[in-house]
């Protein structure tokens, strides 16, 4: 018996192999899409049935690894995180992320993005190297301080924000939303002491100065991160630093290991209400 839930969908896929093809071409394949099927599932089906040489990147299938960023119906998205039904169209047009060179078909070359990311020192910079190698406790941080950077730490480096950014599209010097948001994530972490080192790069042309605040990066982020906000906060930090108005603080101290003793000011649990 035929499955009445299936819906026929036309996949339009941009194919290109540098060195072999002279220019990109669009390939069209019709597949039956079931409810709940993602664009990534659809691509697997196309690969199995029609195009065995079709190439893309994917791994976790649950919006965690950030591998399967691609342009779906004109918008950068994670293929694994986009159901075909939510596109509300019988045509699913899939292309590689814009603003990157193409390695093959739907595989963008993300290495320039990661090189910039590395140059902006996206990790905790502290002088107590011994403590980092052989920790004696945890770095002190309040929940309020954690909230200053928490949302920026949800970035999975999928590159969707870079693909949507109009400044990245035209300005090869601009670092782009992902590396800048990552740098701000560490600049606003109270455990970090690397602001001055990152400033060497950020205060120059590679910093946030070319951002027009179009906000497309935040619109397309599949994890709900707001890189545009990070970039504006970074501008604020750097300008306040130039004007000598930025509060200078040493990185947070190490909090000793828990003693195991129960604190006296912790109230007792309320009595059970369910037997």
């Amino acid at each position, binding site marked *: 018996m035929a499955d009445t839930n299936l819906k026929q969908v036309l996949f339009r896929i941009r194919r290109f192999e540098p060195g072999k093809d002279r220019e990109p071409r669009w390939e069209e394949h019709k597949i039956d899409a079931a409810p709940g099927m993602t664009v990534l599932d659809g691509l697997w089906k196309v690969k199995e049935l029609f195009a065995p040489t079709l190439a893309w990147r994917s791994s976790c299938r649950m919006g965690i690894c950030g591998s399967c960023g691609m342009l779906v119906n004109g918008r950068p998205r994670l293929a694994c995180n986009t159901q075909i039904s939510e596109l509300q169209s019988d045509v699913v047009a899939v292309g590689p992320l814009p603003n990157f060179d193409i390695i093959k078909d739907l595989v963008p070359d993300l290495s320039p993005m990661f090189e910039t990311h590395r140059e902006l020192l996206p990790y905790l910079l502290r002088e107590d190297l011994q403590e980092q190698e052989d920790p004696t406790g945890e770095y002190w941080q309040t929940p309020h301080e954690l909230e200053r950077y928490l949302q920026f730490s949800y970035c999975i480096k999928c590159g969707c924000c870079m693909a949507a950014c109009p*400044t990245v599209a*035209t*300005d090869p010097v601009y670092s782009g939303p992902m590396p800048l948001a990552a740098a701000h994530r560490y600049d606003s972490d109270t455990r970090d002491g690397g602001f001055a080192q990152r400033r060497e790069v950020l*205060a*120059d042309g590679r910093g946030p*100065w*070319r951002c027009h605040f179009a906000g497309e990066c935040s619109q397309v982020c599949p994890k709900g991160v707001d890189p545009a906000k990070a970039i504006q906060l970074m501008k604020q930090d750097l*300008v306040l630093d*130039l004007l000598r108005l930025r509060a200078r603080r040493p990185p947070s101290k190490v909090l000793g290991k828990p003693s195991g003793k129960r604190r006296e000011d912790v109230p007792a649990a309320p009595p059970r209400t369910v037997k």
Partner: protein
Amino acid sequence: MRDRTLWTWHIVAGLVILVFLGLHMTIMHLNSTFPTFNNPAGGEAESWVNVAWRMKSLFFALTYVVMLGAALYHGLYGLRNILFELNPGTGLRRTINVALSALGLVLFAFGAWVAVAAPGVVSRMGG
């Protein structure tokens, strides 16, 4: 470091424009609400007596020069950003920087000279 400094001045110039443009709007377009505010002769803000009075005022000469400098810097920095987004090479970038700086300085010198020379001109015209 240079881009941060240029951008900071861009924002400062924007704030200066905001304040002085507010002053300009108050004097020129709210003269019914504030009839004597820097329009000593009352009536139209564009009347010769009012214009001549403002042209001879040291305060206005200073605000004209500061406003001119802020507007030129703000506008030319914006133009520089637009041109840089056309992705010029290093040499062309340097040329754009020099050309826009020279244009800004020439316009500023001319505008400042007008503001400084205005009191004398107004006096000769009987203002």
